[in-house]
């Protein structure tokens, strides 16, 4: 145990600024939500700052057709926020596939679904 404490001390001596993997924190429309009104763009908030050039998202419908309207963008004023423009969405379920590179070079990816309700 004494040696482990010594090793921990040595480790802490190499201290660098802590960062972490960029995971999805929350989104608008929310993950798994059912919307009465189709969104014109999606917003994804992450737990860490993103590298804009290597982070992005696509949106597909249940047939696998892409419904995003152009390239997703990391907000220049808030690098934890990603905007994804989408086409006019009809009723149905949609899947968002995102990938992220945090500023400390950790890669993450994920996906979730939301639904636009029939009116």
């Amino acid at each position, binding site marked *: *145990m*004494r*040696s*482990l404490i*010594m*090793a*921990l001390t*040595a*480790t802490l001596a*190499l*201290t*660098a600024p*802590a*960062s*972490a*993997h960029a*995971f*999805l*924190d*929350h*989104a608008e429309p*929310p*993950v*798994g*939500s059912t919307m009465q009104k189709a969104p014109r763009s999606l917003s994804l908030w992450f*737990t860490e700052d993103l590298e804009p*050039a*290597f982070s*992005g998202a696509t949106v597909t419908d249940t047939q696998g057709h892409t419904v995003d309207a152009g390239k997703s963008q990391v907000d220049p004023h808030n690098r934890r926020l990603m905007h994804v423009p989408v086409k006019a969405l009809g009723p149905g*379920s949609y899947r968002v596939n995102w*990938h992220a*590179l945090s500023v*400390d*070079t*950790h*890669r*993450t*990816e*994920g*996906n*979730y*679904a939301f639904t636009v309700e029939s009116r």
Partner: protein
Amino acid sequence: MGRPWLRAGLLALMTTLVPLGSAFAHCVVGNRFFPATLNVDDPCVADELSLPTISSFKTGDNPAANELDISGEFSKTITEDFGVSVGSTWTQLRTPGSPTATGFKNLETAFQYQLLKDPTHEFAMMASLGIEWGGTGASSVGADPFTTYTPTLDVGKGFGDLPTEAGWLRAFAVTGSLGYAIPGSASTTSVDPDTGDVTVTQNPRVLQWGGSLQYSMPYLKSAVVDLGLPDFANQLIPIVEAQFSTPVANTADSGAKTTGTVNPGIIYVGDTYQVGVEAIVPINRDSGGNIGVIGQLHLYLDDMFPKTLGRPLIDTSAIDKGR
């Protein structure tokens, strides 16, 4: 070189080597994050430090002893897919009618290789060779005089690839571990210092198996449905671990009875660390004399030191800049 210096030397070597490349560790497989489990290994090579892990329980001996263990384990990636770990445990044994025994158990190391990470199916598989170095610990706390080699296969599977209709069930995941402990010596000879009697004890080969069932609230929020729960609740992973040992060869002295524990508990996952606590429930009298407890602070070194200690020593995969 004495034992404390051997331990410190090994650990210092691992902590001071200068990383050369970029990093990608942590047990993240697609949408899924497998936390470091307290008893069975998680299925990923990683840069991490478990310090301390503290457990208290009654042993399965007769009479049962109160055992307190304080341990640490340091894991380091050499390449993105290959890593090593070193661990040590300090033990206190209080047996009724006997003096309290304290000391280190044998030093343990492991060489680990990431066989597979399948993001689509949230599946990970790791092979490892664990080595418990005989004679590096104190015999008074049960450290064996012989070295034991344990090849092990660890797997993890998340259920996020179930149909969307499965809903909240998709946040479940399981891990499994199967190892075969092979003593470096088939028998141990001991001499009673008082009578001079010689005793030969057969050292069994032991199947070590177990796993965990876990429910990831972080997964539920980020990949299934955001219920708007408080942040604290969204960081929890309720878990049940189980670990068993079954002697399968050279069992003349040990018998072939399976021992083990089932450990229900919970893990809180922070940005750069996790904290876990579990009950230790023995499956039979030979496995323990009461319900014990284990707690652990686990540090994600790849997140704490992303540009130094948290990177593989040798970079084998450039960042995919084409994504």
